[in-house]
């Protein structure tokens, strides 16, 4: 008996090794829900918390990449949205051609430089002719209209911000009353050069019912921007009875001091529209 115990004692390392390995293999075979529930219950919190910390550190480092992905996804979704909106215009008897409905394309660009407190403000973006950006294309941001491309070289483009003395956007006021009467209140949004948060909306007929708080969006009658992109909200309407138009002040929805990503809007049918409008055969 003592001999047997002696042998056991001599090979105690081996038996310990065997026992530990058996435990390991048992755990591995149970390596499913059971293991998580039975063993991790006590230590779960510590492990989870520390994993979360390291994950957060990773996420923070990866934020730039995530931003890029989201911006691209947004561009794609925006395209689908305008396509759908255009397809279902809701006017009976009028069906839009699918080519027409899909005329807008979006390119994501990053703002690399901008001004917003000069008289003529520009924005520089990191996409140029290599990515299909051309002078004259519209530029919008997630929150609203930004401007129009002034000049594009190979890699960069300069954009007239809407805060530029020569930049104008064809705009339209949206509210319930106008929709009831099925009329549109068209106007031209233009910056007056004073406050970079407000633009002026001119040439809105003074018999059109517009009020403070109404949304101002891009109109259907422009080839540069997709219809109904937000410009801002009316902050003030003043009308003296002697004038034919409202004097409307619009608070911009785009914050020009914090632009990061913008979308360059490409209208694939703009050439065709221009041709129809300026055909010399029509006198």
């Amino acid at each position: 008996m003592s001999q047997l115990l002696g042998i056991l004692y001599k090979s105690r390392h081996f038996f310990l090794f065997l026992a530990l390995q058996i435990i390991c293999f048992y755990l591995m075979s149970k390596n499913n829900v059971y293991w998580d529930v039975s063993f991790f219950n006590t230590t779960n919190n510590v492990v989870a918390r520390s994993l979360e910390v390291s994950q957060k550190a990773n996420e923070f480092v990866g934020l730039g990449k995530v931003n890029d992905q989201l911006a691209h996804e947004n561009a794609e979704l925006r395209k689908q949205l305008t396509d759908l909106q255009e397809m279902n215009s809701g006017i009976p008897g009028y069906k839009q051609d699918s080519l027409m409905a899909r005329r807008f394309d979006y390119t994501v660009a990053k703002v690399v430089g901008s001004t917003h407190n000069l008289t003529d403000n520009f924005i520089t973006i990191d996409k140029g002719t290599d990515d299909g950006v051309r002078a004259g294309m519209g530029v919008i941001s997630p929150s609203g209209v930004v401007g129009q491309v002034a000049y594009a070289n190979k890699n960069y483009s300069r954009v007239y911000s809407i805060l530029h003395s020569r930049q104008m956007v064809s705009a339209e006021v949206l509210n319930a009353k106008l929709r009831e009467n099925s009329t549109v209140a068209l106007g031209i949004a233009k910056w007056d050069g004073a406050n970079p948060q407000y633009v002026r909306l001119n040439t809105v007929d003074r018999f059109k019912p517009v009020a403070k708080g109404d949304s101002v969006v891009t109109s259907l009658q422009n080839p540069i921007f997709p219809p109904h992109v937000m410009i801002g909200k009316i902050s003030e309407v003043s009308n003296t009875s002697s004038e034919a138009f409202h004097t409307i002040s619009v608070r911009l929805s785009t914050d020009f001091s914090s632009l990061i990503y913008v979308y360059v809007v490409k209208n694939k049918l703009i050439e065709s529209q221009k041709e129809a409008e300026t055909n010399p055969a029509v006198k």
Partner: protein
Amino acid sequence: MNTQTILKIAASAIIYTLLQVFILRNLVFFDVAFCFVYISVILFLPSATPTSTALVIAFVTGILVDMFYNTAGLHASAAVMIAYIRGFILKVLFPSKGLENEIVISVEGMGVERFIRYIVILTFVHHTYLFFLEAGTFNFFLNTSLKILASVMFSSIVIFLLHVYLKSLRNS
């Protein structure tokens, strides 16, 4: 084994495990080169440590790593394996030295060449065991072998450098 040695072992275990769990877990080259630096805890135990103690230390370290990798038992099993064969490897590498004159496991104690050989052999055993156990079959033999070779190179270099670095920190 005195208190100082135990403290040293505990400190190294904590440092290597944290390093493994928080930094090296995210460091994988080309999807094939993994780095399991936590085996340093077992590799650099004093050579006089009884095998049973080494086994227990290896098991605990392995289980800790397993918790973060969500692979219950896998790393523990591999760590216990190398803790067990460590004694034989030492005997094979240093046949002349017996129990009287103890081997000091370090660059100075073994010489660079033998020290590296010691690290590479144990890392190789550990990684081979680990990756084949993880794969579960020999079906992906080539893929697993590639992983093992790349990881052994990567791990050995990191283990060697970290050991030298931590040694120099301790001395200064």
